[in-house]
């Protein structure tokens, strides 16, 4: 995956209006997009993403339809697309079929929140076979040995968990981020490090870049904005977040 850095990755939940939201996010300055494929019992997610997932499922969303939505997004925007889901969804679809169909729909990477490197053998071969980067996560609680394993196994980028807990907008980031960046960088010097979980403000993005990360992922806060104000509000919100990237580039 060619991830432009500094990266600003926005999350949209698979739904009929996801393509429109994706366009708005990219107009605002998103450099890549995550597409949530909903799962009934998302353990890593807080209330905002849970609610969005349930709404999506209630509207009849299936993994197959979500990949069609991904293809529709791919036709409209020119940034890397990264489906994000849970092990049960991929397992039911079949890892090989899922990766094949996701690649055909335009996915360049894949995040599966509850499948750590130890459990991802089959998924990794399936992803590699069709050129999809399987992204792994490291957290502030991860031990050095695990950081090495996850960072070395991760493709495309390493996902730095910026808050101990489930997803959801927060006021502050974990104070261990700089240390986590440093350790992960040492384990995977050539892989971009992108932080997510709890990020909601331009100051957070700036602080992460300051800590040495190569970008940020914004999910729950963006869903909250969409809930309140639709695509226009999302575009304005992303534009504001993106100011943090420009100050860094300049």
């Amino acid at each position, binding site marked *: 995956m060619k991830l432009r850095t500094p990266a600003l990755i926005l999350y949209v939940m698979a739904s009929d209006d996801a393509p429109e939201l994706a366009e708005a996010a990219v107009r605002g300055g998103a450099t890549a997009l995550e597409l949530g494929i909903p*799962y*009934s*019992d998302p*353990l*890593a997610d*807080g209330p905002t993403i*849970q609610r969005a997932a349930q709404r999506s*499922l209630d509207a009849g969303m*299936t*993994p197959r339809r979500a990949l069609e939505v991904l293809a529709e997004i791919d036709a409209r925007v020119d940034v890397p697309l990264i489906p994000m889901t*849970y*092990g*049960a*969804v*991929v*397992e*039911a*679809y079949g890892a090989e079929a899922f990766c094949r169909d996701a690649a055909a729909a335009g996915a360049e990477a894949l995040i599966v*929140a*509850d*499948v*750590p490197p*130890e*459990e991802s053998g089959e998924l990794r071969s399936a992803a590699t076979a069709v050129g999809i980067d399987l992204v*792994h*996560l*490291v*957290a*502030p*609680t*991860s*031990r050095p040995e*695990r950081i090495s394993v*996850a960072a070395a196994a991760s493709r495309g980028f390493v996902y730095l*968990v910026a808050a*101990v*807990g*489930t997803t959801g907008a927060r006021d502050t980031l974990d104070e261990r981020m700089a240390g986590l960046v440093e350790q992960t960088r040492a384990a995977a010097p050539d892989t971009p490090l992108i932080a997510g979980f709890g990020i909601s403000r331009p100051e957070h993005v700036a602080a992460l870049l300051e800590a040495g990360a190569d970008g940020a992922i914004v999910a729950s806060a963006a869903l909250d904005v969409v809930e309140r104000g639709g695509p226009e509000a999302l575009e304005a919100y992303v534009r504001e977040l993106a100011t943090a990237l420009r100050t860094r580039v300049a």
Partner: protein
Amino acid sequence: MRPAVTHRPDARGRFGAFGGRFVPETVMAALDELEAAVEEAFADPTFAAEMEALHRDYVGRQTPLYLAERLTEDVGGAQIWLKREDLAHTGAHKINNAVGQALLARRLGKRRIVAETGAGQHGVATATVCARFGLEAVVYMGEEDMRRQRPNVVRMGLLGATLMPVTAGAGTLKDAMNEAIRDWIASVETTHYLIGSAAGPHPYPYLVRELQAVIGHEARAQMLERTGRLPDAVVACVGGGSNAIGLFHPFRDDDVRLVGVEAGGDGAALHAASIGGGRVSVLHGSRSYVLADEHGQVEETHSISAGLDYPGVGPEHAHLHETGRAEYVPESDDDALRAFHRLCLLEGIIPALESSHAIARAERVARELGPDGVVLVGLSGRGDKDVGSVIEREGHPLRAVEPNPEPEREVVQ
């Protein structure tokens, strides 16, 4: 002394193709840490001595092995022996696991405990051991379960636990478990997750089995002492599977039938029989049988018993099913209720609705085996908590005008 560990999961925490660790990265370190603490504790004679003393003086072990004579006579088949976990402190087997994990939490230096509960028995056991060891207890419970297991809600309050009502989904065990795990993901550095069944990510299924195996070790020795032989069949109800695996485990290498009883619900579409009606998927951290649709989305379940009303099952049961070592069969709400009443009237024992599923199946197995056979049943808990559910379904059981009723006629529609 702890009995030597047999049938360990592999290095990745798998029983055959099942188990493992399907969790967010944030809690992986805590699972590693717990795994190390478990091995250390199991090798430590001090831990064994502490457990033994607590079992004897606090839990009230060993629990009796009881020949249900009138039930046996009434069924007209094999002898039916009950392993009386209903007589353990707090009224169910759940205390065996809670005591052991409380000791582990103390070893880990964690003073806050989160747990989920369905029937409320695990919540009560958790609240109990937290009171006993001076730990903070936070228990997640679905609102529907709080309604149908009211007495246990009150008990948890008296024991000083903080109860967190869960409104998501159907408000039952699965939803409570989601929230307990989410709490733990956020609090993992100070909090131990005291899971209530032989489910979840490695090392929990293994840990809980080892802590519940005391049921089977005692029962096996008691059986040999009392009858000079092993039973032909061992029967236990299966929610997540902790009382069943604890009873089965010491009989694994014997020539004994192992029968796990899942919740058959209304006998048709609405049930909670994960092995009987589910597919291989991932739920709450491990790969096992799950009641899920073709897309992997978890389905709603139904059982009259809150403790069996769960769409998953512990991974070792999935393995025992796959290898054919154990058989898994359903019993319906109605058949469990019938067995519930029979045990009340024939033995003077009010069983938990969960355990009533095992009784119902034990009667069938006893009939199959005939008078020369011996059936051992796990009576996993007492039914005080369930009297409200029974009244709700059947009305008030006033019998003043009808002394000595025939058990068969007593069954209310």
